[in-house]
């Protein structure tokens, strides 16, 4: 597979410099490396700038409703657990509208890869505060400064039971591509919080800001320590935003423990109704 094979007739309509361009680039790079195509992979997105990605990527996809990408992806995975299932979601999509789904997907450890396009505000609706917006930040919906504390998505993921929890910055594309591959290979729920600028509406979280304030976890960091990972996930501030795999443990995925699909995905099975009369007899 070549990079061109992943192109559609449409060119990205994101703003020049948007972090989504890098995320899109990283996804394609990873797809070429790993052979993710229409025979083995599906993309699911919610609504927000991130969702446009599906129009520019020639991999079969489902663009759902705002906040609802995760349950759609869950249904897909349960019906066909052979597929690589990627969820593209935004900070508003995943943490606001779809917050409940995020919690429970982590808890159940579905074998999904959630790519959280995190630009710390609502961009498609032209710049309102999101659950990831820092306190005090002025946006169109918080003209006097955001009164709310932000959520820490990775702390939530770890607390809720996700088994692969990582952070990336969209500008570091090759590293992001490798992280996507690692996340997909992980059996169980993977989340990558991808810090990305919104060049139009977020004047704080710029490329420069991320480049100055993020750092990669040291090689000797132990990602299996849940308590330490949780502390890392809460870390934020000047030069204090960790990148890399914060938490990773081996645990059976939800799908791996369902006897009905232990050998064959549901979609490849013929419904087993030959002995339905036995069931009917229970009601006599």
């Amino acid at each position: 597979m070549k990079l061109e094979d992943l192109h559609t007739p449409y060119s990205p309509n994101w703003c020049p410099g948007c972090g989504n361009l890098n995320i899109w680039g990283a996804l394609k790079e990873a797809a070429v490396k790993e052979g993710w195509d229409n025979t083995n992979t599906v993309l699911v997105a919610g609504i927000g700038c991130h969702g446009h990605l599906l129009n520019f990527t020639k991999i079969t996809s489902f663009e759902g409703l705002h906040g609802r990408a995760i349950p759609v992806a869950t249904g897909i995975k349960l019906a066909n657990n052979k597929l690589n299932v990627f969820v593209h979601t935004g900070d508003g999509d995943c943490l606001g509208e779809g917050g409940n789904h995020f919690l429970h997907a982590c808890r159940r450890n579905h074998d999904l890869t959630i790519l959280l396009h995190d630009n710390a505000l609502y961009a498609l609706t032209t710049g309102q505060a999101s659950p990831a917006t820092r306190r005090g930040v002025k946006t169109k919906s918080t003209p006097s400064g955001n009164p709310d504390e932000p959520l820490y998505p990775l702390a939530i993921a770890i607390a809720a039971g996700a088994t692969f929890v990582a952070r990336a910055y969209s500008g570091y594309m090759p590293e992001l591509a490798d992280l996507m591959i690692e996340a997909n290979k992980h059996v169980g729920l993977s989340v990558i919080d991808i810090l990305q600028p919104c060049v139009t509406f977020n004047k704080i979280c710029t490329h420069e800001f991320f480049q100055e304030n993020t750092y990669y976890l040291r090689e000797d960091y132990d990602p299996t320590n849940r308590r330490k990972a949780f502390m890392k996930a809460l870390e934020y501030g000047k030069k204090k935003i960790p990148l890399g795999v914060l938490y990773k443990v081996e645990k059976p995925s939800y799908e791996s423990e369902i006897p009905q699909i232990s050998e064959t995905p549901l979609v490849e099975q013929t419904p087993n109704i030959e002995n339905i009369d036995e069931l009917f007899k229970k009601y006599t």
Partner: protein
Amino acid sequence: MAIKIKGITDVASVKIGGPAGAGVKSTGLMFAKTAARSGYQIYDNVEFPSLIRGGHNVMQINFSTEAVTSPRKNSDLLVAFDQETIDLHSTELLPGSGLIFDSDEKLNTSELKKDISLYGIPLYKLAKEASEKELFTNTVALGAVIGLFGGNLETLKQLIAEEFEDKGNEVIEENKKAAQLGYDYVLKNFKESIKEYLKPIDNFTSPIPYMVLTGNESVALGAIAAGMQFASIYPMSPISNILHVLATNQEKYGYIYKQPEDEISAINMAIGASFAGVRSMTATSGGGFCLMTEGYGLAGMTETPLVIVEGMRGAPATGLPTWSEQGDLQFVLHAHQGEFPRIVLAPGDIKEAFDITMQAFNLADKYQTPVVVLLDKNICENDQSFLFFDISNYKIDRGKLLKEKVDDYIRYKDEPDGVSQRAIPGSGNFFLANSDEHTQVGYSTEEIKDRKEMMQKRMQKLTMCEASDMQKPQIFGPEKADFTIVSWGSNKGSIIEALKSFRNVNFVHITWMNPFPADSLKKILSESKYILDVENNYTGQLANLIREKTGVEMTDKLLRYDGRIIYPEEIVERISYIEGVETI
């Protein structure tokens, strides 16, 4: 049979009442199955008025040699496990009927009419005799009822052995003993009162007895029989039993039931699974359907097949959780913003719920759109007996489902019938299932041409469905009559019974709500001089739909919005007042 109303099927009826946890429902069901196995047909009505002092449960089982399709206002025998049952229900006892109660408890029966027979039985004491560990008072009472109705105790014992199979031999034997003690007590003390209502029917030779089941159960069985492979259902009264049945049988029948975190997730998971290529469903009540409305339109827009079961209860808000209503018809017909093909079907009884559920899966696949099966609580939770379900005529038809790779695949290709080939992810075919308006491939678009093309394509499916699948309303009674009852849902049973009291009254039962059989209905109604609309809601939602679609106005309406079932007696009474109606 005991309860005789001119024209209406004669039934015998026993009502069992007691506090929640006394085993009213399980006792009632055991009785119903004993009756069915003895060759009788049954209809039972379960009521659990949760607002009256901590959960008072009653179940009325009506049985007859003929089909019974509704409950009755009165009963022949009341089994009271507490004073409340006596206080609330003894007025329903007709002269000559009886009351079973625990003679060792200080229950007040002084308010009862003189012509009611009192069958005081030491239920508790006999239960203790049967088992020291557990209390099978209800089984003692059940044995007593079988005795009083001249039933076959061996049938009950066989049933006990089957029902308690998982609980071990000791429990089975103790229950059998409890039933025997109740039975013997009646034979010894009330021999002269025995009425042989439950005498096994001699010529009942069917190798397989009647099935006795609720609508929830028939929907679950219908889904499994239709090859459903994925269900995500969040618990909610009155449909929770659908998920109980599905959860229990999933490994054996190879499908997946998943309990989601909420109804929004439920419908989106089901959409995801269906998109991935398996038959999928969800179920809920009105409140949960509120949360599902966004997913409802998503299935319509992405052209994803989906079966949604909506079991109505008293509303709005939390409403009357354990009571029935038909208040969601207009809601389901219009739910979600904008326009898309919604197929809405409303079964009128438990067997229809089974058949329509199976049909719904074929329709959803054929038209690649959501199909709602609209039930009401009376169908969901009441039992009725039916001949053993036969599905040999059913063919699973997945429609234009495409699992292989084809050249130049176009997901939303504009076809004359509005339905395009539906590939699945992983098939090698590229496409987008897009909640945005989209091109034929699925790319987002806002072009006029694309929009018009896709709207027309989607809506065309409804036209096709109307032409090739929609069924005409069913007419019961004379084909043409001066007086016509129009109704839907569970009222069907009571109306069919009521109809038997009259000569020139017929009944039009409507199951297709969208597309709507406007032409055939208009023709039927134009033959009638007087149309009575019967519904379980305040505004007459079906009547409004009929007016909208046909221009025909109802002459009169019988509306109940107190959660209670409409009894045949009420309908008979209402019709009797109409001038020109001929009673039998």
